[in-house]
């Protein structure tokens, strides 16, 4: 279903099991090992995908078929029309649009300001740097539920609440991206920067011409994780967004829950639909984790 990017020709997975070449039996052993490994991988993948499968099956059920004993793995009569109903009955298009806007803006800002600040923390030295860095990490350690109200009051005074910008403000300047990028820059040898400085490159030049190109895998993982986090965030939009035309997909799906009832099948339909964009982003992004692309030209 998803083996779109799998074009890599040389299968040396078996090397994980049997190490470097030693004798003639290698190919036979490695063939058995390879098959065994694939069997294990496929079973593991099936187990991991089971909840997603349940989501898909439930999206085709009627509301009262979703939660049952024993669990029903396939609907008695698949309700394909759920996938039509959800577009007609709700404002999916607006929700998707808002969510996409937020995910893109938040991710872009986080990657840009985060990597920029990370360069400051990683490659320049000044007094108080480590303390400031700890303060960054420290804020991650405070549970959001506890400062939600003071922050909400502050945002309201800034005129941000009930606008999409409130979510941007909430997410875009977090410490996560700074921390991630800083750790990655730390692995890039100082000699590279020194050489560039001797060549007359400015600090900004080093950041842009050397650090950024070398950090593609880190930027890819930051992008993916931020995108998914923003896409699936519930509590942030819940607290800040009120007008229905600002709702994100996670908020919108909750409108199928009233005080005592819920349209579980439609919630699952919406959830399946909301996974698809993430899937596309993931399939595009994961190509940047291929061994060796970042390190070419670098000596340890």
């Amino acid at each position, binding site marked *: 279903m998803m083996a779109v990017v799998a074009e890599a020709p040389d299968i040396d997975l078996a090397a994980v099991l049997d190490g470097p070449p030693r004798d003639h039996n290698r190919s036979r052993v490695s063939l058995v090992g390879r098959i065994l490994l694939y069997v294990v991988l496929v079973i593991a993948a099936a187990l991991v995908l089971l909840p997603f499968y349940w989501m898909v099956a439930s999206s085709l059920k009627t509301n009262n078929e979703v939660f049952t004993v024993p*669990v029903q793995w396939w609907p008695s009569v698949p309700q394909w029309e759920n996938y039509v109903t959800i577009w007609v009955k709700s404002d999916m298009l607006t929700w998707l649009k808002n969510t996409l806007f937020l995910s893109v803006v938040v991710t872009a800002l986080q990657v840009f300001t985060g990597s920029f600040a990370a360069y400051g923390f990683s490659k320049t030295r000044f007094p108080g740097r480590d303390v400031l860095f700890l303060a960054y990490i420290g804020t991650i350690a405070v549970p959001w539920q506890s400062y939600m109200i003071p922050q909400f009051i502050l945002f309201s005074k800034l005129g941000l609440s009930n606008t999409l910008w409130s979510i941007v403000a909430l997410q875009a300047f977090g410490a996560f991206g700074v921390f991630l990028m800083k750790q990655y820059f730390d692995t890039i040898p100082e000699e590279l920067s020194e050489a560039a400085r001797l060549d007359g490159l400015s600090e900004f030049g080093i950041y842009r011409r050397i650090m950024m190109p070398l950090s593609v895998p880190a930027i890819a993982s930051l992008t993916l994780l931020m995108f998914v986090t923003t896409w699936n965030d519930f509590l942030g939009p819940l607290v800040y967004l009120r007008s229905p035309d600002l709702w994100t997909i996670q908020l919108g799906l909750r409108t199928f829950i009233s005080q005592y009832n819920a349209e579980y099948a439609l919630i699952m339909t919406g959830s399946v639909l909301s996974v698809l964009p993430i899937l596309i982003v993931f399939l595009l992004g994961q190509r940047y984790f291929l061994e060796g692309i970042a390190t070419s030209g670098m000596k340890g």
Partner: protein
Amino acid sequence: MSESSVAIARPTGAVGTRGPLRRLWLRNALQGWGFILPNFVGFALLTMVPVVTLFYYAFTSWNAFGKAKFTGVENFVRMWNDGSFWTALWNTVYYTAFHIPLTLVVSLGLALLLNRRIRGLAFFRTAAFFPYITSIVAIAVVWNTLFSPDYGPINQFLRAIGIDNPPGWTASATWSMPAVIIVGTWREMGYYMLLFLAGLQTVPRELYEAARVDGANRWQQFWGVTLPMLRPTTFFVTVMLTIGSFKVFDLILVMTEGGPGQSTLVLSQYIYQKGFYENDFGYASAVSIVLFAICIAVTVIQFLYNKRKDA
């Protein structure tokens, strides 16, 4: 800032007079801040300010409306005598102590396994990441079904291999926490795998070649090359994982709602209860401060340890 290309070399302390050193110091500071500022402005105003107010509210009685009443250390005295707080703290430590090492090992293992060119790579990587993007409600339902004491496949399997009294998992006070730990690890392994995958790209191939020439086997290469080169990433993952584990919230909410009894009640949930159910935001802030202090203490230890290894 852009013209300072040569003089940036760190102050070595060995040469130079006071004057130039001082200017260098100033320039370094300016440069550092120049990079940090765009993020810092947003961060300080939007996050740091509210967080700092929390430290004030922890010493007050506050119901979210109007003015907070200063009560000194009253909240902390109350916490000391609050059995539920200690239960929640203990449960949080329990979760953390198992969740961190398990997730570290599993996600690093996955990253190593999926960092090579194999057929269907994209599929397996996506599959590993799927638990993190699947709706958390679906996860709770399916895992609870698997764990179901009487009809669940897990217990049927355990009975089949001769265990007569398999655990009650999420329906029992003794086994609910292990069950939640398993699901927590399963859910987050793909997330941390991604971070490890990024880190693995920085390990130069030449090092492996050199190690191979020296006769190191795969295992020795892993300990001698991969792990040391991966240390900044491991540090990052460990810190994020530690804080994430101490703050675990929504997973437990959908899996067990803290039950049965108080068997999976954790601090984040306790804070939410005290704040939004009981409208006791002063006390909730005080508990948050304690949670914060624990996280920071653990992080600083990791930070110092990491620094020492760096030097």
